[in-house]
């Protein structure tokens, strides 16, 4: 018995509207590939590159609860702001984030990261100092690597003290694309 797309969508949206979901997620296209975007009732909780939905729903269920369902409605505001960002029409995201699964010290660093403005870069060491842990540059690197909400929490704006891009959870190529998009890299140097 095939469930029609309309019937399917109606249920997914009803479930979200009824507030019965721990996590709503959807896939969205972007210039740096398909993204999986997930939200809870508190805000955006996950953005994933090269998503494998089965693995992601397991991960989200472990972190937030088993009621994980693909539903476009709750994700729509995030999708819209991402589109605007990639179109160059948005310099700052106005989105609540849900960082509950992150350790408190990681959360501090990620909140600090959120303040690094569009078009600028900082370094792992500077971010460690800003977070009040000047010795923790390497730990900050780990937090960036595990950033659950890349792009919105701009870990691509964190580079090495010598100016090298160092690394990126979504691959260095994407980091470069994002920084170029923001005009933070001199294109001729790359």
């Amino acid at each position, binding site marked *: *018995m*095939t*469930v029609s797309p309309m*019937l*399917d969508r*109606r*249920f997914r949206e*009803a*479930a979200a509207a*009824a507030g*019965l*979901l721990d996590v709503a997620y959807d896939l969205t296209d972007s210039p740096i590939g398909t993204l999986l975007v997930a939200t809870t009732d508190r805000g955006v909780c996950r953005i994933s590159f090269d998503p494998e*939905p*089965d693995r992601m*729903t*397991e991960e*989200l*269920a472990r972190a937030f*609860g*088993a*009621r*994980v*369902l*693909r539903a476009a409605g709750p994700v729509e505001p995030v999708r819209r702001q991402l589109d605007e960002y990639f179109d160059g029409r948005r310099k700052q995201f106005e989105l609540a984030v849900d960082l509950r699964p992150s350790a408190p010290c990681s959360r501090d660093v990620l909140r600090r990261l959120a303040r690094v403005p569009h078009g600028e870069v900082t370094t792992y060491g500077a971010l460690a100092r800003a977070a009040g842990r000047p010795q923790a540059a390497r730990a900050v690197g780990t937090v960036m690597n595990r950033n659950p909400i890349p792009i919105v929490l701009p870990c691509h704006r964190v580079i090495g003290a010598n100016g090298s891009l160092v690394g990126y959870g979504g691959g260095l190529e994407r980091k470069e694309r994002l920084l170029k998009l923001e005009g933070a890299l001199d294109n001729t140097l790359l």
Partner: protein
Amino acid sequence: MAALHPPPFEKFYEEHRAAVLGELRRLLGVQAAEDAYQETFLRALRGYDSLRHADNLHAWALTIARRVAADQHRRRDAEPEAPEPSIDTRPAYAELGELAGTLPRKERAAVVLRYGYDLSYAAIGAALGSSEQAARQAASAGVRRLRRRLGGADQQRSGRLSRPPTDKTRRMQ
């Protein structure tokens, strides 16, 4: 071995939605199955948190579907008659629901399910919690009672239901 945790709801939903819709169509007909489908999975979501393990999720999903179908029948029986709209755009089951509104509960349900929803007697029996034979008897008793009550000139002319045959009621004759 018992699976430890229920899977993400998305996985549960994808695995069981076809079987649930099939069961609901069997019990309620294509039209009513759509509403019941929403209700079934919304109820499943409400109960999903309290699941302790992932055993028999298929049976669990179908159990909810059957309860929803049974509730739909109960609700349909309890619904007060709606005021008549000026233009009759109602589907057959709505017209029949009013026509059969004064029948005893079981007869009414059997008549409406049989002639309004085109359900088989087996499905009607399942929905009413009785046998196929009992469902057939209830439907035919209901039709007889309607004929007696509606009476009048039409009945004398046709010897059948008093209303002139329309698309909606022709199948009853």
